[in-house]
Every structure is written in C-alpha cells, then in structure tokens.
C-alpha cells in the first residue's frame, strides 16, 4: 500500500511522508485509520526502521497522525491545516515548475481543469464499485516527485 521507489533521488522517509499525505488528501486514508507499525512497514519495504520512524515523526509533528503508545499510529484528520498547507505547497511547486518550463497561465488553468475532471470521474467510478478506499495506485505517481 505504501509502495515507494528505492532508487529514487527523494529520500525514503520523504517519499513515505508524501505518500501518507497524498493518500490523506485523496481520502484513501481517513481520520482514525490505523497505519501499519514501523516494524511492519520496514519489513514490507525492506528498509531501515529508523527511516520509517523518521517519516512517522514528521507526520506526527505536522499533525497528520497521532501516535498512541502501545496501540499504534492513526490518521488524525483529513481536513487538517497541515494537509492543506502541504497541498498548497505542492501546488505552488508544480506551478513553479510548469512556469519555468514555459507553460502559460492559461495552459496551466486548462491543465488543472482537465486533471480535476479526470479525478472526479475516477472517484465516482470508485464509489460505484465500492473499492474507492483500496485503490491507491493510479494517477498519483507524480505526487512524490513534484
């Protein structure tokens, strides 16, 4: 569920952090959902547990998860200020990239419309067959690299 690219330039903890944020923003993870433990995640991904713990600490610091000793880590809220802040930052970054690559304001707005329309269609499809919560592997590859 948290597939990450071990070969990527982006540090593994950062990929994990962004992954959880992205899934929260898209409501694939909802308030109260339990995350796998550091141990489970480190084993599943074949990475150092300190790396996973670092991602969890950052998520906790930014108010995205809530760790209850002995019980685990839980998503704190989907509309939290932290999620919005990160979404805005990511968006600003994407706009900066697009701008410096020569995309005009109008072209960017068009892109936004196309993407949002596609997302809306996808999410209504997902709700139809009730698999919305488990689908997390489509159309989001770009999120961790923006």
């Amino acid at each position, binding site marked *: 569920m948290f597939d990450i690219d071990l070969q990527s330039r*982006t540090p593994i903890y950062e990929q994990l952090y962004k992954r959880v944020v992205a899934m929260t923003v898209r409501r694939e993870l909802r308030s109260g959902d339990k995350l796998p433990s550091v141990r489970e995640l480190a084993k599943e991904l074949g990475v150092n*547990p300190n790396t996973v713990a670092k991602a969890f600490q950052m998520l906790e610091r930014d108010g995205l998860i809530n760790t209850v000793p002995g019980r685990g880590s839980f998503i704190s809220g989907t509309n939290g200020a932290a999620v919005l802040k990160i979404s805005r930052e990511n968006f600003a970054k994407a706009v*900066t990239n697009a701008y410096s690559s020569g995309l005009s304001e109008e072209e960017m707005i068009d892109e936004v419309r196309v993407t949002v329309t596609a997302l809306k269609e996808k999410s209504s499809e997902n709700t139809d067959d009730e698999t919305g919560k488990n689908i997390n592997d489509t159309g989001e590859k770009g999120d961790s690299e923006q």
Partner: protein
Amino acid sequence: MIKLENVTKKFGDFSALDNVDLMIPKGTSFGLLGSNGAGKSTILRLLSGIYRQTSGNVLIDGENVFDNTEIKKRVFFINDETVQFGTFTLKGLKNYYKGFYPNFSEEIFEELRNTVKLPEDKRIDRFSKGMKRQSVVITGLASGADFLLLDEAFDGLDPTMRIIVKRMLVDAMLDRNLTTVISSHNLKEINEVCDSVALVHQGKVVFNRDLDSVKGNIHKVQAAFAGDKNYEKADFEKYGILHYSRSQSIHYIIMKGSEEEIREKLAEKDPIVLDLIPLSLEEIFIYEMEGLGYDAGQLD
C-alpha cells in the same frame, strides 16, 4: 556507540588507515563504501578486535576493543574468514558460539537453519561457498550481539536470504537497539539499509554523511538561457558547482542544494529552461569525489 579517534593502522610502511575519525550512534545502520583495498575491511577488523590499531582509539561504548573480551562478546563479525570451520558441523558451530555469546539464541539459529535448509550434521568445510556464507550469517543473526559487522554482507546471498536478513535486522534494531556496520560495493543495498554512509578511499574517510541529506541535497541541472547571454563555467562557479559541461545551448551543472535553493540561485541568470534531474546515489558519489579532487575513475 562506536567511535574511532585518530585511528591509524599500518602494515610495515603501508598505511591501511590514516588518521580516521568516525562515530556511529547506537541503534543505527552504517554503511562503508569504497573500492577494494580502500580500508573498509580494516575498519571492521579493528572493530572486531582482530587487528590492533597502530595509533588512536577504537572504542565501543567508550572502551578500546583490542584484547577486551567483554566487548568482544557484544560484537559479531560476519565475514568468510571469521569462522575457522575446520571439521565443525553446523551443530558444533552453534555450540561453540553459544559458549561465547551470552545472548545467543538457539531458537533463532534453528529457525533460520530450517528456513535455508542447511544440514546440521554435515561438515561445514564440505559445504558450498554459498552454504558457508549462510552458515556465518545465521550464526551472526542468532548471536544476540549488540554490534553486527557485515563485510560485503549481502554479496553471495540469494534474494530470499537477503530478505530474511533484512527483516531480521529490522527486528533486532527495534527490539534490542542493534547497531550494524555494513561494508559493500553495492550502493543499492546500502541505500535501502543504512542511515549514514562513509566513503573510504586510500585509507581515509573521504566523507561521512546522513544518507537522506546526501540524497536531497545534490542535483543535476539542465538549463538554457536567452541567446544574448553567453554564460560559461566561470559564471556558475560562485554557486559551488561540482561539475559543468555544455552542449550547444544547454548547460549541464551538478550542484549542491535543495531544489528550491537551486531554483532561487539560478533565477538571477534568468533561465528560459530549468530542469532538475534526479541523480542516482552512484552518480552522487562520483560527483562528490570529483568535487573533492579525486578522479572518479579511481573508485573502481
């Protein structure tokens, strides 16, 4: 905690290690990278008490390692040469190490032995190379040592065994704060397993850094500028570049800094194209070496 202070190790006139300082916090995983003969194994042999340093201190939890039995009971060195197999069977080997390591886990040993299907009563010196390797690895994982040193650890293990070893390391790090020092040529493995890395070259630690900060902090930049601005390498020197080349109107620059920092710095040059391209960890090391004045060709 592992600490090397001004450590020099000479063999006759040859300095295998030259004034090395290194600190490895408890509960972390540390990678040693470098070519053959760079000094990686010498560091591990000093840490396991096989060698005595010519000068300086090789400290584990504040105590010098050489001739220190109490410390050695807490260190296991996974290396083909560590175990003098002789006529031992795996059962004999287990009993031998059980006598030395106070926290040796027979349970883990048997579990792993069954997983990799190694015979218990066959002489180890008649094992294949891969089976010998597995024997040492499972002994090390079962030893209960606080410090596990792995020399070219993952080489010679099949993919299944690699996964088993990695998972065992996760448990040991979380359950008993295991510290591992891993030497390797294989950047991919180091990348997945280690918190920090040191690059060893000709007996010196060239650099020593947190892996995450290495990765987020160096970029390959492809940039083009308006035709009237004929920039050259000299125009970029002030940004602390590690490498520069140019092909037609495209400038290729390797420079340190986060994506934001680089974009900010280069904004004053008014680029019309500015792409930041991911660097593989391997490229990062090569350019870091170049930046330090080493010829990247010497790495291998």
